[in-house]
């Protein structure tokens, strides 16, 4: 039963394309949780990014620096903090959220948020102040002017959303800590890979790794092609 990379990889492909129920269950959990998390985080984060780029207020640089710092916080630290908050003995213990999908979503929102703020901030910064003034003088109210600016920055904003999604769908520390890796419920791709590896079951680990790799390729190709088009328009 000598295991080697090739055999394991073939086995992993078989698992993937035979639609192994357990494997696709894990993939489903991953996508569901991360999609919900990114859709919750995106709008408020982009609005904050917008405010930081366009509105001049005291201490703005401090807020920007804060979000930049938060971006660098390791996922396990975010996980630990949330663990302490959500634990039965913690301040939000009564909500019984620990080791549930909502807890994972909270964790992933917390992870994606600073990244989205920072990337959308720089996306808006690259938009000319004239865009705002032109929209306003042509009769746009503040709300619509914001939408106009978002439209102008759409490629960069989309890039930040994709980057945020990439970060949370491949994140293991926080999901493991506050999700608990419960089968069919909070077991997602990264925690499953961690588990399978610790069990020495590499085929399933590689199969899941392949899914992440394909996803990463797709995201980046999409991004690159959008950017390419963006330059022409």
């Amino acid at each position, binding site marked *: 039963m000598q295991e080697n990379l090739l055999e394991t990889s073939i086995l992993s492909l078989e698992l993937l394309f035979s639609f192994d129920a357990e494997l696709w269950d894990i993939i489903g959990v991953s996508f569901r949780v991360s999609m919900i998390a990114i859709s919750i985080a995106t709008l408020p984060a982009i609005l904050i990014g917008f405010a930081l780029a366009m509105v001049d207020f005291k201490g703005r640089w401090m807020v920007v620096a804060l979000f930049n710092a938060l971006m660098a916080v390791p996922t396990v630290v975010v996980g630990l903090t949330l663990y302490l908050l959500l634990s039965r003995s913690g301040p939000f213990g009564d909500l019984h959220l620990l*080791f549930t999908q909502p807890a994972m979503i909270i964790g992933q929102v917390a992870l994606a948020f600073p990244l989205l703020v920072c990337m959308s901030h720089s996306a808006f910064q690259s938009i000319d102040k004239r865009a705002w003034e032109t929209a306003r003088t042509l009769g746009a109210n503040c709300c619509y002017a914001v939408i106009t600016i978002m439209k102008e920055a759409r490629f960069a904003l989309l890039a930040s959303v994709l980057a945020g999604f990439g970060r949370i769908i491949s994140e293991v520390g926080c999901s493991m800590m506050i999700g608990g890796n419960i089968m069919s419920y909070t*077991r997602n791709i990264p*925690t499953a890979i961690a588990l399978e590896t610790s069990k*020495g079951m590499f085929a399933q680990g590689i199969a899941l790794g392949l899914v992440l790799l394909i996803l990463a390729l797709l995201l980046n190709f999409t991004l690159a092609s959008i950017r390419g088009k963006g330059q022409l328009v």
Partner: protein
Amino acid sequence: MKKWITGAVTVAVLAASSAMCAAEENIIRLATTTSTYNSGLLDKLLPEFEKIHKVKVQVIAVGTGKALRMGQAGDVDVVMTHAPKSEKKFVASGYGVNPRSVMYNDFVIVGPKADPANIKGKESVTSALEGISDKNATFISRGDDSGTHKKELSLWAETAKGKLFTNYKEVGQGMGKVLQMADELEAYTITDRGTWLAYKSRMQLILLVEGDTRLFNPYQIIQINPEKHNGVNSIGAKALSDWFVSKVGQEMINDFRINNEALFYGSANADVANN
């Protein structure tokens, strides 16, 4: 100039690799289970052994399944695990040699104080598990192919209906983490006594079932067959194995205490693994 660099690099690589080879001889790699490692037993025993033999023992703490796989791949020199069936197969396939019974401890069932399944004090572990599944109480399973997980599965297999109830949750994590999760979710779980003693003071869980002979947990130490892989430190492995079953080693195991409670019982003279 180029030649000079190539030469320098070659010398450096040779020097480094020879240094590493020299170091290899003084290193014994032991793969063992997380439950053993977490108990702190090895932290007490190994320094003694290292002092006498002037070697360094590197402990790799993983689940039993992985420990045996590492042994099979020749990534370690010696394994100490607690899954008799897998160990038997491991030796029979020729990956391991000289399996020896080292010690045993036992498993216990812990759960919430409220004890919704009303299993406190039951003498039969199977009837306790049946109580849990009948009430559909939350039960956390290691689910990580570890020795403890295998033990748990074999116990469920002895019950009438098995583990098919909706609140049976496989979490695929280490023992300590499983205890924490059981504590948070007010769930039942099976744990080795060592981890339980180490975590007990931080938990609201209480011990509910113990003492059934089926909850016995025998540990074996197995050397990796040097004929299967090059570079296995078989001399060191043998020395470590010998030391564990020696009078000194066995006494140290028996004397090991957590919160004034004995955890492991030396079994080198009574072959517990095969009963």
